[in-house]
């Protein structure tokens, strides 16, 4: 079986999982990154969002063999940064977290957006989270949380 090497939250790692193993399974089961959630398992809900080479992707529809040499960041990696803290505070202030299942994916989408565009308008925010479903909040509070995160973390992105 061949090895796949990649960078995970800043550290070089490797796995011997079969290359067709879903990335989400490797991240959760082997690397214990349980912030990567499984909702739909088919690319529609964004619960499994991570960053691959700085761009948001769905870990449930990538095979680990496609990841060789890539730089991955999971919700765990983002949470420990100042930006991650600004995102958490923004969401908390806006009351944007209800059951919380969508939250790690939303945080990844927020990080991806603010890296590209530190002062997004409402339409840009909605487009950025269009692949992330939330069955609780109705999105208005999440949009508000992202605006607050952008203000709080102003200068960090």
């Amino acid at each position, binding site marked *: 079986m061949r090895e796949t090497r990649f960078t995970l939250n800043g550290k070089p790692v490797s796995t011997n999982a079969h*290359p067709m193993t879903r990335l989400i399974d490797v991240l959760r089961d082997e690397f214990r990154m349980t912030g990567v959630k*499984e909702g739909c398992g*088919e690319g529609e809900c964004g619960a499994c969002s991570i960053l691959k080479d700085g761009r948001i*992707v769905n870990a449930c529809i990538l*095979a680990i063999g496609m990841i*060789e040499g890539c730089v991955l960041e999971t919700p765990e990696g983002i949470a420990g940064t100042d930006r991650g803290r600004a995102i958490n505070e923004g969401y908390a202030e806006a009351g944007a977290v209800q059951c919380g299942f969508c939250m790690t994916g939303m945080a990844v989408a927020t990080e991806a957006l603010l890296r590209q565009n530190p002062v997004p308008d409402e339409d840009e925010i909605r487009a*950025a989270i*269009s692949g992330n479903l939330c069955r609780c909040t109705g999105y208005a509070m999440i949009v508000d949380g992202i605006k607050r995160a952008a203000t709080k973390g102003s200068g960090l992105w």
Partner: protein
Amino acid sequence: MVDFHRPRDLSEALQIRAATAAVPLAGGTDLLVRYRNWAGTLPRIDRPVLYVGHLAELRSVDVAGNGSGPGMIIGAAVTYSELLEHPTTPQLLRDSIIELAAPGLRNVATLAGNICNASPAADAACALYALNAEVELAGPGGRRRIPIAEFITGPGTTVLKADELLTAVHLPPDRSTVQYYRKVGTRHANALSKLSLCACARVADRRVTQIGIAVGAVAPTIVKAPRIEQQLQGAGIEQVVSQIPDALRQYGQLIRPIDDQRSTADYRRHVALALIEQFLARELR
């Protein structure tokens, strides 16, 4: 367990393809969903898999200039997001990509996958029909280039041979002045089309000098009718309006939708013809 090939370069990829008829894998957004299995288990695919998404030869976008402006040669592993960021991507293709899925998919999915999947509801492929794109195929015998409408032969079927790969999409220079993209679906993001219309035209001095109309999800393949387009080309915009009933009658014969979980045949037919009418009657200015 299936073999997974991650070739070094295109020539190794073509050798593996010829030797094993392995299934090409680009972004995986169609393939890995189709062969989806239980969490924690491998996808249910029983043929070797050939990953091509990383191949440098397929990752570039070239601007192929000629007298009438920049055309494009889009490598088969270029993602939708990269196309949105490219300055010469035609507006109609841009419009179709912006409404396709969501950022997480557009960051990995490719035009090549959309074309080879050969769904009549493929949104980016629909824009490529309207833009008269050609696909470039490579195999042991060398390369060939054919119009997209000849490449796709039915729902899920193409003329791609078991030893070939799609290597690039060629776009002629886009000189359109009017673009009209309408995707009719249940919600904006991540919804497959009930039907879609991709149309563009060049209007100069109130005359339609070029027109391209493609309709998605209303027949076994995307509908594009060069014969009807030729009748409209060269006409003044008032003349086009007088030709609408005749054009709609002809499109009506080509539009043969089905009932499925996303919509009904009646609805699709009605809305497709209404959108064509809207484009011809109001957008050509």
